[in-house]
């Protein structure tokens, strides 16, 4: 089992957002989590990645048998958890490659592996940049500094490719992308699908799922998983909206 979430309750500023989430994700599976605005989708990904300011009041998150909630964000990263940000952050003056190298080598160190030297790392990075058709010039620029919206999202998937996580959370990676950029990002993600890598995609739109076929689709609304199904559920949501799921759940 890659990830097991049981009865997860979480609050932000004292307001309960997640109201009992249960979710199980097996190795190699791709799950899509869809839901209306304010349903708790981003809260869920932030809780899994360990962002400050999210208070877990009840429940548990178990990742590869470990209590994820007891770990610092960087410890989660070392263990193979990755979050592709909805709004990637700019860090002026810090070289994109430098940040990644520090991240990769910190993880390797904690796994007892030898750190990559500059040459080995450049080779790895150049190879992975091709995956999302990221121009080499991005590697030496400041982290997300002056990147367009689409470039930022591609940079996230590029980072995912370099960090090779076991569990990747893609938080609205499709938002703000034009159709060409979406195709490139989706191609990158598809190439990163692997038997030992699970992916959670958080999205508003069915559109993304045309490009990245999920194994399971969940509907998150009002802080709970209201419905779980296969790819056809996403099509139905697009057609009919979310109200019927709510009504069905409350019936």
């Amino acid at each position, binding site marked *: 089992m890659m990830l097991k979430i049981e009865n997860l309750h979480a609050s932000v500023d004292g307001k309960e957002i997640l109201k009992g989430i249960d979710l199980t994700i097996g190795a190699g599976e791709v799950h899509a989590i869809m839901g209306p605005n304010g349903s708790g989708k981003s809260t869920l990904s932030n809780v899994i990645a360990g*962002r400050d300011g999210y*208070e877990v009041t009840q429940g548990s998150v178990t990742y590869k048998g470990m209590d994820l*909630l007891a770990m610092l964000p960087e410890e989660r990263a070392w263990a193979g958890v990755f979050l592709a940000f909805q709004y990637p*952050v700019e860090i002026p003056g*810090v070289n994109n490659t430098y940040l990644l190298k*520090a*991240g*990769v080598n910190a993880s390797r160190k904690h796994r007892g592996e030898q750190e990559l030297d500059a040459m080995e790392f450049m080779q790895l990075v150049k190879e992975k940049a091709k995956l999302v058709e990221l121009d080499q010039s991005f590697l030496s620029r*400041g982290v997300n500094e002056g990147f367009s919206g689409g470039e930022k999202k591609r940079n996230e998937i590029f980072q995912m490719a370099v960090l090779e996580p076991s569990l990747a959370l893609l938080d609205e990676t499709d938002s703000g992308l034009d159709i060409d950029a979406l195709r490139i990002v989706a191609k990158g993600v598809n190439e990163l699908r692997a038997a030992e890598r699970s992916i959670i995609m958080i999205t508003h739109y069915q559109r993304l799922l045309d490009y990245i076929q999920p194994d399971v689709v969940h509907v998150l609304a009002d802080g709970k998983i209201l419905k779980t199904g296969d790819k056809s559920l996403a099509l139905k949501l697009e057609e009919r909206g979310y109200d019927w799921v709510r009504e069905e759940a409350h019936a």
Partner: protein
Amino acid sequence: MSNTKKEQQPESFTNREYEAGFITDIETDTLPPGLNEDVIRHISAKKDEPEWLLNWRLEAFRHWQTMTEPHWPNVTYTPTDYQAISYYSAPKSQADGPKSLDEVDPKLLETYEKLGIPLREQAFLAGVAVDAVFDSVSVATTFKGKLKEVGVIFCPISEAVRDHPELVQQYMGSVVPTGDNFFAALNAAVFTDGSFVYIPKGVRCPMELSTYFRINALNTGQFERTLIIAEEGSYVSYLEGCTAPQRDENQLHAAVVELVAMDDAQIKYSTVQNWYPGDENGLGGIYNFVTKRADCRGARSKVSWTQVETGSAITWKYPSCVLRGEDSVGEFYSVALTKMHQQADTGTKMIHIGKNSRSTIVSKGIAAGHGNQSYRGLVKIAKSAEGARNYTQCDSLLIGDQCGAHTFPYVEVKNPTATMEHEATTSKIGEDQLFYCQSRGISEEDAVNMIVNGFCKDVFNELPMEFAVEANRLMEVSLEGAVG
């Protein structure tokens, strides 16, 4: 059940031990505290100075007595009792001045060794000559011989007074007059040592020159004076470093630095200032009240000030350029870090007099803990400065919510052809940035370092390579314990 992961607060800045805080136990020849004409005569006699210099000192002292201490900077401190300070302290073993490195007291060599400044030439970084100033005297100057071959003079200023009196008399006080300001007048009256650099016409100084200032004795002030003269078409890169022991008392450091650049001459002056900053409650630390000024006398002359200020309880200084020559260039690159209860009011003055003179100011302020800092800068374009240009960029980075950053830019333009640009930003190290780095596997502490170093990059790039590494390390040490 609550989120069990460790509570993290970037604002909980604790001080990692100040590495240079040790005291060297050495027998000293120290004057009793107090300041009067006899003390000045005594200092002058100790240094075996000519009469003109004694008179110069006395004149400055008499002027100083008529002045009042200024209180306009945006800092607060208990006033200094000028009668409670000792104005001269020197290791006894150095009484006659070192003839060569072999004669330097091993205890002193050990002190500098501990600070990472080995004075034995073969041990030191190739290509860097060092003048080591310990309290009131210079204890050693390396590579003097090698420099002499190309005509470069690099020696303690007291030695320059003896061996090159005509140069000292001609230039000392010509950039910062004795009555320039309260602290400059005090310095002129009581200055003890410092470095003297003379680069002859057309010579590119073959190595980096550096002076390492160390305050060791208790209740003393350090009043050093540095004078650098770059003749026509010459080039020199000079660096100063500073440390002091950890003590509960505040100590005054009031230096004067004068630079003179002739036609086509270039002086690059870098400072890595790591005086003892005081403890986490704001007790102790150095008052760093310094006057630094460059006179770009010649056409196309260029002076570049780069400073990394991480130490001192209070830093109060404005390395400035008087851009007298046509097409002369002044630059000021600064990183100032104030943490715990440190305060800084620093910046620069660019005085444009020559036609088409240009200046660039890049100031990066980082405040953490209860640190408070101000950028204060003056850009003055005189009527004569046809076509002058200035670019100013001031950025502040705040870590936590108990610190402060302020910007006081002053602009006086008397010539309508001048071009002025000013950019200023204030940002906080965002939780967002920290979390972003952490989610990529970088610990919070490393993330803070990375973000701060990125913020300072434009300035660190200006430092000579060896010292850029040192500056990076110093920032890391200073920021250690910044979080967690």
